[in-house]
């Protein structure tokens, strides 16, 4: 009995890997859907954007790479649909070198869906290295930080940039952030100094770290991980999805959210089993 338990404890971890793979694949192929509630932190983002007026301009910092794509792509897409459906202009920059080749095609695709004009209704400024230094410069002088956009046009002369010199000049700023540099650095470096209206969509990993910023109003909204994306997606697509015909998009996060159920249960089970085995063998060994 003890020997079996010890062997169970030391079993090849590849069995655990296989179990994890099954816990993901099975619910993907045979989905069971549960309803979910909308979090107030996510609703705050939605409400704030709803209160924007047509013609307002916002700044999005898209700081994520393919590695965190499943969590943030749904938010980024829904967010762009939301802005464009409200006729809000969007200026996007990035602090991650691997972001532009990924997020710019999505921007162009969604903008085309809404019939938006590059340079007038949206612009992608490109990538900027320098982490906190870049953030500082963007905050005080967007045009100096990005003299040219991704297509090498002079940023200063683009119609969308008229009267937009600092981050303060934008109606709000969204940080879609997968880590460093991202939301935290924006909050530290510029949110307080310039009193920006700023919200963040982030990976689940960073969410607990940013909750204090939400609690102290340094962020007006916070969407964390897959559930945050799914909730925001639901809010946006429920309002703008079918009625206006503007959005030709699938709720990708909602599909994934239901697979998470199984994954979480599997991990909880592993922790419990591991501990039961641990304590049983330990007590017996001590005796």
């Amino acid at each position, binding site marked *: 009995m003890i020997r079996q338990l010890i062997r169970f404890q030391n079993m090849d971890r590849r069995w655990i890997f296989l179990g994890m793979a099954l816990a993901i694949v099975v619910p993907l192929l045979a989905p069971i859907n549960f309803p979910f509630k909308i979090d107030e932190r996510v609703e705050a983002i939605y409400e704030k954007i709803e209160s924007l007026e047509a013609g307002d301009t916002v700044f999005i910092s898209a700081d994520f790479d393919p590695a965190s794509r499943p*969590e943030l792509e749904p938010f980024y897409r829904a967010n762009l649909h939301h802005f464009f459906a409200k006729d809000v202009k969007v200026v996007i920059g990035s602090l991650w*070198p691997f972001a532009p080749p990924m997020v710019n095609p999505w921007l162009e695709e969604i903008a085309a869906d809404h019939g938006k004009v590059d340079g007038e209704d949206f612009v992608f400024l490109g990538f900027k290295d320098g*982490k*906190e230094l870049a953030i500082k410069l963007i905050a005080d002088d967007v045009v100096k930080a990005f003299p040219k956009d991704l297509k090498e046009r002079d940023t200063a002369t683009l119609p969308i940039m008229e009267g937009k010199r600092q981050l303060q000049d934008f109606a709000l700023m969204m940080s879609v952030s997968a880590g460093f540099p991202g939301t935290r650095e924006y909050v530290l470096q510029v949110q307080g100094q310039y009193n920006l209206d700023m919200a963040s969509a982030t990976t689940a990993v960073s969410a607990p770290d940013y909750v204090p*910023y939400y609690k102290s109003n340094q962020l007006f909204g916070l969407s964390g*991980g*897959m559930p945050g994306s799914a909730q925001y997606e639901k809010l946006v697509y429920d309002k703008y999805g079918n009625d206006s015909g503007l959005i030709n998009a699938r709720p990708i996060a909602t599909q*994934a959210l239901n697979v998470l159920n199984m994954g979480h249960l599997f991990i909880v089970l592993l922790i419990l089993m591991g501990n039961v085995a641990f304590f049983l063998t330990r007590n017996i060994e001590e005796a």
Partner: protein
Amino acid sequence: METVSLIDLFGIWVSIFLTLAIFSFLYDDNPIYKLAENLFLGISIGIGTIEIYYGVFKPNLIDHLADLRWQSFIPLGLLFLLMMKITKKYSYFARLPIAFIVAAFAGVKLTGEANANLMTPIAESMPDLQASWAQYGFWSWENDGAGVFSDLVLVLGLSACLLHFYFSAKPNRAMSGVSKVGITVLMLSFGASFGYTVMGRISLAIGRFQELLGLDKTEAQWMLEGSEEPLSTMTNVSIVRWMTVVTAVVIILIIARWKRQQNNEPTDQAG
């Protein structure tokens, strides 16, 4: 019906192959994983360099130099000194630009941290207990447990955590008591963090499996570019799934063969 070019179809297969190649590391370190890993190393530095060139060097330096903007010759000089680092002999010169970057970062962080991470948290951690009592009472389920109890946990928990990180005190009972409270609050927070991180990681795996199972595509039949006929009677989702299964089998066979080879030559452990 969805048109697809041959090169994209090949790309989809490459993508499946590389995904499975990385996953094969879960079985063991193996040549296929190493191939993917080194490919990744090379490509990531390559893409990083390209994006940095077009993102920083071109607009913020080269274009300025082309306009003969005199200020921009200073960073050019500093950059040149930084590159001295490569040479063994003159690497001493790189100290100047490095000192510049370090000082710039230190200065920028100093005020940022002091403002947003020191002043604001203190300002926001002084709750009005009377108002809280009037609004929520001791504990309110409807408002996620808001109330005087939570306010006290916030203030006292924060104080206890701060005192846990007080290193000048000689160990005594009062301090260790405060420290225990601090540790408990920290552990609750880390527990939440662990739970969230598990969620994040599983989400990423889900993303990969969605692609392997073709679930990232809208179900349709594929048609090759320039052709009138559908590629196959199967939908794109089924084709992707078949690609995945076949590739997985091939990778497993290769690794099995490699394993057997390795077992036959036990001396060749260096690889």
